[in-house]
């Protein structure tokens, strides 16, 4: 029987799937298909993390996609497949509005099989340029595609390559930056786990273009599956002569090494990343000199983000014009976003740059998970900013977001509903960057700490009148005087929340009130006269903070109350409320 006629069961084994239990599901299928003519296969994340574990049933004529599959369902599903009764549970809206270039193979191929990639025109772009395109022409193609760095800064990729190409040196390096560290961002992980060869191909093309013989993939060690798959991919590509000496007999030598990062967020910054590869502490240095002049071991070096490199093979295969057809005036192409936070359909989406936030959140992401209105969206991770609901019509492109006080960043979109306290959110992001400061610059090391202390006291209800002014003063000086982008952008979440949600800061400081009721220091639980002294709350209170004789009105002892809210939820007489 030909493979094409076989029914294939394909389990999504990306990190998101595995953490939802997909490995067990895979094993259950493995056991269950014994003795049948069904084939079991795996792929990686297709972006619909909210549906994991996802199992695709590939029939002769169509693909049926199953969501949230559990081990217990497996025997029934096998039965249904064998009896042709299987029903598609796919939720197509999620994909309809997307344009998948970078993610085109994610969730469709087995990332550990080079043949799967080759079957999808894999390494055709590399072959094409090695056959008959000069490095300068490759660069000009990338330039005219309008591709910009997807790691956050949005620097034009072709120009970056050109600078590195023009640096005179016998030795040069290219580096793939897979040190993805923003809270709520996971697109690089998904691309490496789901389509690792595409990244290698992009890196090889960049090496060819700038004249580098060696490439590094700098990937964080906290992504063990990505590390495993990219290493496997390198080995397989070398075995097929798609990497190594004299690639495809076309005279280009290119080698790739994997360097695992030890988990410092700042190593996503180019100069710190280079220091880390060199075996030094990951600490940024002042630019200039830029890596294009003096990078790894002092040689000209080009660093691109995973997503940027993953777009390259497509651009070479389809042409720059086709890529540039997508997107906005100054921001061409597509961008992968990770939808996270209080969103119904969290996962990865790849859309044309310039789509509005509202479309992405409501039409693709199906609104908030709570069903409550959106209050704000945090874009660009801890270096980014919070935009209020009223700005959801902002097109998502580099310039428009920057003008509003946020950034595209690596593409994290964290959705927050009305129950989110914006001061607390600013505190959360600042706490992240403060912890990740490398400690070199005074303003970043200590300025962010003092800002954090101010935010902490505001959320505890101990804010002072002068705090807003102090925050702004600190933020502007930290922003102006830090050496690297981590420090320069660390105050952004505070500045953007202060810009759009200043009232909330004032309420916390002056009225000692948190409208989202999430700052526990500002919540007080009270018992009204409706209390009949039933003792339910007394028994439920984990802090033993409620006093009262049976059948008499109870009282909460404020010093003991931990503000967990259990009393309010157990009271049957609506006698407990919080303010």
């Amino acid at each position, binding site marked *: 029987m030909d493979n094409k006629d076989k029914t294939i069961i394909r389990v999504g084994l990306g990190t998101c799937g595995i953490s939802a239990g997909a490995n067990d599901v895979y094993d259950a299928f493995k056991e269950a298909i014994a003795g049948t003519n069904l084939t079991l296969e795996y792929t990686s994340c297709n972006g619909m993390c909210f549906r994991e574990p996802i199992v695709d049933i590939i029939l002769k004529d169509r693909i049926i996609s199953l969501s949230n599959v559990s081990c217990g369902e497996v025997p029934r599903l096998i039965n249904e497949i064998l009896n042709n009764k299987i029903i598609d549970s796919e939720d197509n809206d999620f994909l309809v509005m997307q344009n998948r270039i970078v993610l085109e193979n994610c969730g469709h191929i087995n990332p550990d099989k080079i043949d799967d990639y080759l079957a999808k025109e894999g390494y055709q772009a590399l072959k094409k340029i090695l056959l008959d395109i000069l490095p300068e022409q490759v660069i000009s193609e990338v330039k005219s595609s309008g591709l910009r760095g997807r790691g956050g800064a949005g620097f034009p990729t072709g120009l970056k390559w050109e600078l590195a190409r023009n640096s005179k040196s016998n030795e040069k390096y290219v580096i793939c930056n897979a040190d993805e560290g923003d809270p709520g961002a996971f697109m690089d992980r998904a691309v490496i786990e789901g389509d690792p060869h595409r990244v290698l191909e992009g890196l090889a093309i960049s090496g060819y273009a700038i004249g580098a013989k060696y490439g590094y993939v700098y990937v964080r060690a906290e992504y063990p599956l990505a590390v495993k798959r990219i290493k496997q991919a390198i080995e397989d590509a070398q075995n097929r002569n798609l990497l190594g000496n004299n690639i495809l007999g076309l005279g280009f030598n290119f080698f790739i090494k994997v360097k695992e990062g030890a988990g*410092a967020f*700042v190593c996503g910054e180019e100069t710190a990343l280079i220091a880390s590869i060199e075996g030094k*502490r990951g*600490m940024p*240095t*002042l630019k*200039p000199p830029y890596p294009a002049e003096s990078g790894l071991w002092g040689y000209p070096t080009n660093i691109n983000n995973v997503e940027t490199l993953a777009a390259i093979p497509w651009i070479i295969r389809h042409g720059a014009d086709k890529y540039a057809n997508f997107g906005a005036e100054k921001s061409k192409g597509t961008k992968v976003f990770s939808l996270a936070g209080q969103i119904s359909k969290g996962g990865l989406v790849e859309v044309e740059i310039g789509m509005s936030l509202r479309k992405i959140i409501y039409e693709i992401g199906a609104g908030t998970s709570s069903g409550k209105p959106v209050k704000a969206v945090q874009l660009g991770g801890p270096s980014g900013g919070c935009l209020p609901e009223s700005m959801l019509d902002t097109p998502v492109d580099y310039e428009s977001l920057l003008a509003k006080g946020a950034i595209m960043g690596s593409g994290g979109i964290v959705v927050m509903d009305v129950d989110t306290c914006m001061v607390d959110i600013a505190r959360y992001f600042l706490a992240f960057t*403060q*912890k*990740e*400061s*490398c*400690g*070199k*610059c*005074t*303003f970043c*090391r*200590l*300025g962010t*700490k*003092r800002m954090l*202390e101010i935010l902490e006291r505001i959320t505890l209800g101990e804010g002072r009148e002068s705090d807003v002014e102090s925050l702004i*003063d*600190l933020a502007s*000086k930290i922003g*102006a*005087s*830090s*050496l690297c982008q981590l420090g320069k952008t660390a105050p952004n979440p505070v500045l953007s929340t202060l810009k759009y949600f200043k009232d909330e800061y004032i309420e916390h400081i002056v009225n000692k009130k948190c409208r989202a009721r999430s700052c526990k220091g500002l919540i007080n639980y009270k018992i009204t006269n409706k209390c009949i002294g039933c003792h339910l709350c007394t028994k439920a209170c984990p802090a033993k903070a409620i006093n009262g004789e049976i059948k008499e009105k109870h009282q909460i002892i404020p010093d003991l109350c931990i503000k967990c809210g259990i009393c309010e939820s157990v009271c049957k007489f609506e006698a407990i409320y919080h303010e």
Partner: protein
Amino acid sequence: MSKATINGITNDFVDGISILEAAKSLGIEIPTLCHIENLEAFGSCGICVVEIKNQNKVVPACATKLLEGMDIETHNDSILSTRKMLLELLFSDHLGDCVPPCSLKGCPANINIQGFLDLESKGKYNEAAALIREKAPLPNILGRICPKPCEKVCLRNRVDEPVMIGVQKRYIAEKEWSSGGPFFPHRAKSSHKRVAIIGAGPAGITAAYYLSLNGHSVVIYEKQAKLGGMMRFGIPKYRLPEDVIDTELNAIVDKLNIDVSYNVEVGKDIDVEEIISKFDAVVFSHGSQLSNKMNVDGEHHEKVIKAVDFLYKLAINIDVNLGKDVVIIGGGHTAMDAARSAARLGSNVTLMYRRSEKEMPAKDEIKEAKDEGVVFEFLVAPERIKRKGGKLYLHCIRMILGEPDESGRRKPIPNSNSRFVLEVDNIISAVGQFTDNSWLPSSWLSEKGHLQVNPSTYQIQNSSGHNNIFAMGDAVTGPDLVVTAVAAGRKVAASVNQLFLGSAVTGEEPVYASTCGELNDLPQEMFSKAKKIARANIPLIDKDIRLTSFNQIEESLNEEEFREESLRCLKCGCVAQNDCKLREYGYNYKADTKKFAGEKRKYEKDFSHLDIKLEIDKCISCGSCVRVCESIKKYYIFGYINRGFTSKIKPEFNRRLIDTKCDACGKCCEVCPTAGVWKHG
């Protein structure tokens, strides 16, 4: 060459130089904490920031190459405020006392206590005395009568007992005198400026001392026939013998050519206006000698004596006949002096104070007074005094303590059911003094009759355009410590000196210092390695003998005992206090060391190495030691560890320095801007 503009000066600069170097070539000093000449720029500290106006950018001057066309400002308002904040941030994470608390917070005159104890321990008494005199010219007197606020904040309180500081000054002075002292520094060349000082008390004498050393000619007008003011006429001889006053004060007046007009009462014997017109500056330090009233009926009876008058008579050897039973009313040092003097005259003495022992200002002498038979009645106030036969009947009421008042002490409230009457022969009232300013121009005085002075310069305000009239000491503050008057005297001398030099009169600069915090808030680890050593005690003459005379009651210790005691000093002051860029810049930029009070780095020292000492808690993470060890020495001993606020520089892999291959070359110590790393000896 590149043409660029720095602070408005356009110049051609050598290609490739940094903005820092370019500015330096124009004589513009940009501060830096991390820049090391001949090493690649690092840019960590951030204090060298400058603004490139035409690029709208702030950059570190050390790590930014000067390029053609740049328009740079190195000291504009925004840069200055950035540097100030940066220093404030560094201080917020710098756990160090530049100056020890005894000197900074304890001593009103900021005497270099750690310094003189160290010299004393090495037997360098003359040097120790000279060091004391840099701040206070009366070491012997202060060594006897100062109530030692320094000892209250001495960090040794957290180990065992404070170092005995006060008496050491007296011993140092005695040793100096026995070798031919007191020795004073040379007087500066005559300035031909003349200054008049009204009153030869501690403030007046101190001001005269420093002004004379600065080459000014000083005339003191003194109402009494002798020098010393309240030191002589208010403090009993058993605490401060007359010959000590004579020796210490006469030496100053004689050796420094200070002219004293005795028995001249300004305002009576000579007009204030006349003095003002005759001198280039006039300093009023006339003390505070009028007694407050008790405001009780019957206090005008002849057997109700004012403590100030009582002590004055004793000082000039006039017999005072006290009856058998005497009550002293008040809780200050004057009350205590009166009580203990009365005891020496053979009376049964009760000291009555309206607050409790804890609030009593003179509580340091309670034990000695009790030994001498003085009975204490706390929480009692007089209500009225009646007279019957030869006796006085003191009607009293007991008090209870209420909420703290403006002075921070709990306010006594009468307890109406607790009245009682004492039958006594004399009552001595010591309930405070006030200043007689009636002879001064009324425009100088506040509504309440107080002298109004500028708190920094001590210039009298509203002195109709005069900037050369000053006032200080008890005359301004009301009764206070001698050491406080001495401090004021020195500060006024600084102001007068500024006036005479023709510079702006701003007063003496307050000591600028970083501190670790208050005594009781300091981390216990700070003291865990300090060995307990028993404090020496100054023996007192036997109490029975004490009561028979006004001889000095404090005896002395021998040289070895004093030396041992001086070695108890924990040397809390920073080794780099005079060579610290953080302190220097902090002072220059007026950085508030407490602006960003918050979590601070933990107490952490590595004294494992014999020669190189690490005070990680004082490190400002500039990385200079790391780079110098790496680039010049190639030893790679230091490195950054951790991230975020907890990041710090230590020997790599968290080792102790002794466990590294450090060969004590000291390069790191040379580049460290603070005392993060320093070389012993």
